[in-house]
């Protein structure tokens, strides 16, 4: 079995096992038939109801679900990349959530307060979000490099700081949008039309520029890590920091820059959420896509493209999960599947050991003691 395929197997098997376990759970609490139907509903809700479309239904039965999936997949891809990039340099970024909040706020402010022509406004808002996320992650990076503060601790704490700073103060206080037409609103002022990420499949589908943006980001990160000198240095630091130092690689700079890039990815996720879906920083952002990014990255084996595939898969599941409710199945099942898959992937070494034992089993059974 080629090494690349073997690396993929634990993730694939974990996801399949998680799907199986959840199917059993639904089957036990409802009925086996319902479980299968629920999975089908989830599929049609995620990739579009192709049978209905082929029976002559309007194209929106395809484009609307795809839009929902793509929207979620874009956010999961970006936060997954955030965690994966940090992993490559040997850091565990638990702080994608906080970095995403800062990015979302920056995008909302640039989108609403700055006036720019259409071609520049979106890039400016995205850049602002990336920089805000990078700066927030950079705090954890600098603390690690100069003070030896473990990034797991600092990023967790910075998540809370970000939540308090943004959700609990700035958004309800200084940056709260002005009342419109006598109605007070929650969240920041609405972004200008020039800052809205254009929709790609018409108004009926929420698929917007954020989705291709996330895919391009993943591709760029992959190319950077595998094809460039600095990407090589980053991986070398992650796999053997002391050997990298002895080889003259600036370990601190690589760590700092990788952490900043991780923050930028999470910040972009915030921007895609605000510019593509919400239109403003809402009263509370809520959505824990930053935490999901940890699961996405780990299930994707911390590989930029692996994380993308895993984000696409769980984007589909998440979007389709709402349709399971039609059958009385709780909509949290997709998240349950994701959580279980993460749990199983954490047993990566067990998977590899099981796979290895299977491949040597014939030889071993041939010499069972005869006496």
């Amino acid at each position: 079995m080629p090494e690349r395929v073997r690396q993929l197997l634990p993730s694939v098997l974990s996801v399949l096992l998680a799907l199986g376990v959840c199917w059993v759970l639904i089957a036990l609490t409802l009925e086996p038939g319902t479980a299968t139907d629920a999975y089908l509903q989830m599929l049609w809700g995620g990739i579009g109801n192709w049978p209905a479309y082929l029976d002559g239904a309007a194209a929106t039965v395809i484009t609307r679900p795809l839009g929902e999936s793509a929207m979620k997949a874009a956010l999961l891809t970006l936060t997954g990349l955030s965690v994966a990039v940090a992993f490559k340099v040997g850091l565990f970024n638990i702080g994608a959530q906080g970095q995403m909040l800062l990015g979302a706020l920056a995008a909302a402010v640039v989108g609403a307060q700055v006036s720019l022509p259409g071609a520049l406004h979106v890039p400016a808002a995205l850049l602002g979000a990336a920089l805000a996320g990078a700066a927030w992650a950079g705090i954890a990076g600098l603390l690690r490099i100069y003070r030896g503060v473990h990034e797991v601790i600092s990023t967790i704490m910075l998540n809370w700081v970000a939540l308090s700073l943004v959700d609990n103060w700035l958004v309800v206080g200084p940056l709260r949008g002005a009342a419109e037409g006598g109605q007070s609103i929650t969240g920041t002022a609405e972004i200008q039309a020039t800052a809205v990420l254009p929709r790609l499949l018409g108004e009926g589908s929420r698929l917007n520029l954020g989705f291709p943006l996330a895919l391009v980001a993943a591709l760029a990160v992959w190319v950077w890590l595998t094809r460039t000198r600095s990407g090589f240095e980053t991986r070398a630091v992650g796999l053997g920091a002391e050997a990298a130092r002895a080889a003259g690689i600036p370990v601190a700079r690589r760590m700092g820059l990788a952490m900043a890039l991780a923050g930028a990815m999470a910040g972009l996720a915030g921007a895609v959420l605000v510019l593509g879906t919400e239109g403003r920083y809402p009263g509370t952002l809520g959505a824990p896509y930053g935490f999901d990014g940890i699961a996405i990255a780990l299930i994707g084996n911390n590989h930029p493209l692996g994380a993308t595939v895993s984000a696409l898969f769980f984007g589909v599941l998440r979007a389709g999960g709402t349709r399971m409710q039609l059958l009385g199945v709780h909509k949290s099942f997709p998240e349950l599947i994701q959580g279980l898959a993460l749990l199983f992937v954490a047993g990566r070494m067990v998977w590899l050991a099981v796979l290895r034992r299977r491949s040597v089993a014939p030889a071993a059974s041939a010499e069972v003691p005869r006496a």
Partner: protein
Amino acid sequence: MHRGELLAVVGENGAGKSSLMNVLYGLYQPDAGVLSLDGQPVRFKSPRDAIARGIGMVHQHFMLVPTLSVAENVVLGREPTRHGLLDLERAVREVSATCARFGFQLEPRARVDTLSVGSQQKVEIVKALHRGAQVLILDEPTAVLTPQESDELARVMRGLVAQGHTVVLISHKLKEVLGVADRIAVMRRGRCVAEVRAADTTAEQLAALMVGEGPRAPAAAAPASAVSQAPGEPLLDVRGLQATGDNGRPALRGVDLEVRAGEIVGIAGVDGNGQRELAEVLTGLRSLTSGSGTLLGGPLGGLTPAQARTRGVGHIPEDRHHRAVVKALSVEENVALGRHTRPPFAKGPWIDFKGRRERTRALTVAYDVRPPDPEVALRALSGGNQQKVVVARELDARPRLLVVVQPTRGLDVGAVAQVHAKLREARDQGTGVLLVSLDLEEVLALSDRVYVFFEGRVTGHFPRHAFDERELGRRMLGTLEPGHA
């Protein structure tokens, strides 16, 4: 093997010695074949089974918890308890008793990281004996020891054998094996090719058996002249160098030395007398606390590893796993490490995959790296082949000054000869080589001049014609006042 016998297993790197022992110890499972103990077939699923059947192993790289005491390390995994709580006093008593029974002098309460390498090894041996080991496997035990410590270890091994224990010694230091073993098994490429009584053989015969018929090209290449031409321009000149060690204590206390182009300068000394720190200062890995120096035309103070490399310092570090290679990366990526920003390894900001592949292919052939596959992960190579990759990389960079620490630690006869030949070749091409080794024979065989280190100071300086092993030994042990011969 028989009870109460000292069996040595010798063979080249990658011959399968360590794999065999790992099977005995239950770390690896045999694919086929039967393992018998006291006439009964046994299967060890894990080291736990092996320990239960009285097999103990001392690994080449110690498996000790540095921050715990000797007693805590020895009882680790089967700690004595009282009312469910750890009974440390009893542990200390038990460990003292074990030490006394086998004649080891160890302080059970001492923290392991404060002990010398030789003492740490004794802790490992005591650990195995304490668990009731009847068969003791020692994997390259003398690789890290000073000559005195090696002699001490030989006495310990003979003592254990006299008490009815069985000792398996894995080594490729033939002289040592001949001096201590009863029987010697020679392995080559995964097979046991010969078994001889130590009394009936010679080092030459063993070496021939190990290498097999047909000497390999690099080892057989005519050695470069032992004595070089007149040394050239000074590459390194340090005065009053001081630096602090990892433990916060001064490791270098005022060192003066000089290395010129086209000479090999050896640093002799017992482990832990500042040699390692000197190498680290010269490669930019450790900052100096006082003193001055010129290194390849620039100041030594404030040197970074990157600057050292740009100036032309090559480095073959002592701690290969930690410092020289990244085992999870491929062979070609390791060859590029440190030079990855320059052709043929890079084109602008991009990795030059083709150039890197070609250069790696050429080096694996020239240095006889097995398997010669640039794409395989470095961790899949045996230790000797990993070291060949390191040596190939550092010499391929054509350094002006090469800092070499323990370059042949754990290598087999063929690989040692090859590394030595390559170092001489580099010297003859004008590279200045600073060789730090705990193996005095190696230092004397290669060096044009030798500095002796003791407690962070130079206690002797010998040119080649004045080498005197006894005199060097005395200065290494600090039994003479500092002076110059």
